[in-house]
């Protein structure tokens, strides 16, 4: 299969990222000659175990944690499920969960199905967000009760990039003896995180969001936090997650974390500048366009812009002609018939929600690409508005 990656202008990094060439390099031996099982007694397998431990240390380093607090999983979704179900099993008498209306489906749908999964009835408080996608901490405080087993709040939103005050929220939960989980798949590697200084009990990472391959994730579990495994089986991962390790991907994720640490500065300077240039350019050159999400409390790589009176899928398919890759929160692309739950929770009007486009950049993007997108977008939107019965030029 030839994907012509060189031709593509990839601005969909919150969906998935390019596997860094450095990551591929360190993975290759484990896909070829170093095929031993880390659990084996012989040296051939045992040395592979050493590589897994090195990766564990690299992940821990990026998020300011201890290597013993790192458990490798298959994906962010598994990490999220493990954390939340573990907390509910550790405190079976507590039947309340606090989360938000804008969580990723991995947490959203899990929380909608807790009763079926645990065999108990649970109450779920889903915190509302403001029109800029931010949370009201007073409402959060009110939601915390003696019956609350766990809080699960994403660190950064995948659609808008809006960052929640996780540090503060975790501390508020801790004061009340409530466990705190954060789905940080979009935040890790993009903003500095030091878990040793925070009251976060569980944190989820997904490899493919930070230039590691798909099919590997991490669950951070703070030392001393009660834990019940989700996948029982062998003694791998210290008994926290059965199943033979996905060695090559784990090693790749370790390298990706080290790279992310090196690139964090660039992510928050050069990438942010590119993002801002793109965002300002779009808002300026295209009438009736608006930013979705808080302007500053936001990831440096993400911008979500709505173009009123046109539909997202149609925009994406026109962009596709120029090999520009992005995402939309429109109904036709969400897999359901309604626009993104995140934009609806923020109260974005339908006129705008259906025409929302998310651009998410990475360190691989360059200025010329931003300029190209800025050149192509205004005629695309204008062309579609020509067709739209709601569009009136004024």
């Amino acid at each position: 299969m030839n994907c012509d990656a060189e031709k593509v202008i990839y601005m969909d990094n919150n969906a998935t990222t390019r596997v860094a060439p450095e990551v591929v390099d360190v993975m290759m031996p484990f896909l070829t000659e170093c095929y031993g099982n880390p659990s084996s007694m012989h040296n051939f397998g045992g040395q592979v175990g050493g590589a897994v431990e090195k990766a564990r240390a690299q992940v821990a380093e990026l998020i300011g944690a201890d290597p013993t607090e790192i458990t490798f999983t298959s994906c962010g979704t598994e990490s999220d499920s493990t954390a939340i179900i573990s907390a509910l099993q550790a405190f079976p008498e507590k039947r309340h969960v606090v989360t938000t209306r804008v969580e990723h489906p991995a947490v959203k749908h899990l929380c909608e199905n807790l009763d079926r999964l645990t065999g108990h009835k649970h109450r779920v408080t889903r915190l509302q967000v403001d029109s800029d996608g931010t949370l009201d901490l007073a409402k959060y405080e009110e939601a915390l009760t003696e019956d609350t087993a766990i809080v699960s709040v994403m660190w950064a939103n995948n659609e808008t990039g809006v960052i929640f005050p996780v540090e503060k929220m975790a501390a508020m939960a801790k004061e009340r003896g409530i466990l705190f989980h954060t789905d940080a798949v979009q935040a890790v590697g993009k903003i500095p995180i030091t878990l040793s200084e925070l009251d976060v009990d569980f944190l989820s990472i997904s490899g493919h969001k930070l230039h590691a391959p798909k099919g590997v994730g991490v669950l951070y579990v703070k030392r001393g936090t009660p834990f019940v495994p989700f996948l029982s089986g062998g003694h791998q991962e210290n008994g926290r997650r059965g199943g033979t390790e996905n060695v090559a991907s784990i090693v790749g994720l370790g390298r990706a974390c080290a790279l992310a640490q090196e690139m964090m500065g660039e992510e928050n300077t050069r990438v942010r500048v590119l993002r801002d240039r793109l965002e300002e350019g779009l808002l300026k050159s295209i009438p009736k366009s608006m930013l979705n999400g808080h302007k500053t409390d936001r990831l440096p790589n993400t911008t979500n812009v709505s173009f009123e009176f046109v539909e997202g899928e149609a925009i994406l398919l026109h962009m596709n002609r120029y090999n520009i890759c992005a995402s939309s929160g429109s109904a036709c692309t969400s897999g359901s018939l309604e626009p993104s739950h995140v934009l609806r929770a923020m109260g974005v009007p339908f006129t705008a929600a259906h025409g929302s486009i998310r651009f998410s950049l990475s360190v691989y993007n360059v200025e010329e690409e931003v300029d190209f997108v800025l050149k192509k977008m205004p005629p695309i939107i204008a062309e579609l508005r020509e067709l739209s019965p709601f569009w009136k030029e004024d």
Partner: protein
Amino acid sequence: MWEYTEKVQEHFLHPQNVGEVENPSGVGDVGSLACGDALKLTLKIDENERIVDAKFKTFGCASAIASSSALTIMVTGMTVDEAEKVTNDDIAEFLGGLPKEKMHCSVMGREALEAAIADYRGVILPMAEGEVVCECFGVTDFEVIRAIKESNLRSVEEITNFTKAGGGCGKCEDKLRDLLQTTINEIPVVPVQVDGPKKMTTLQKIKKIEEVLEREIKPALKKDGGDIELVDVDGDFVMVSLRGACTSCAKSQTTLKEYVEKKLREQVLDTLIVEEAK
């Protein structure tokens, strides 16, 4: 990513007949911004009731735009009576097919056409009079029943694909299931082609009966672990032998009369009597 045919892509990227005709004879305005797609169709109809011009404006995804473009091409040159007979399946077919989740785009085209014709004739559309079943997308029971009948829908998921009903909060799912059940029960089963009754020879009967058994009845019984064999045909008497789970099933006689006999009467000869060979 949707799998769109080349025809859909062509009509999406280069839509035909965009705009509004001046002094239209009929206007069809369907859908809304909230629903995520909307279509305004304007028709120019001459004194011979022939559509001489059709133009559209569409807010929606690629398949909505392509369906609109296709619709205007299809109806231009048709008489109003001819245009009235255009179905959503015709629109989808014109485009070489649509992904099943996108069939509602072709339905929107058909609805706009009907609305424009109704506007031209100065009558009120029956679907506007139905009772709203799906509040998220404002779909009436009339529209749902019609889609079930016309496109031979068999599940709530299919209803959603064609009409969008049930695609929002999902609260109307039970209502849709009820509508589906009642509508299916109402649809008369069309006989496959009854060769002149009473003129069939025994051999013809046997052949026909075997055919229906193989095609419909056996697969149905096998689902429950049962089976059936044709033993003999004597005049109108059809002797069969039940096998498998049917032999010990208390309901086997009901199955024989209510299901097997009914099917054979519908599809072979309406005087047949099915009996179990002892």
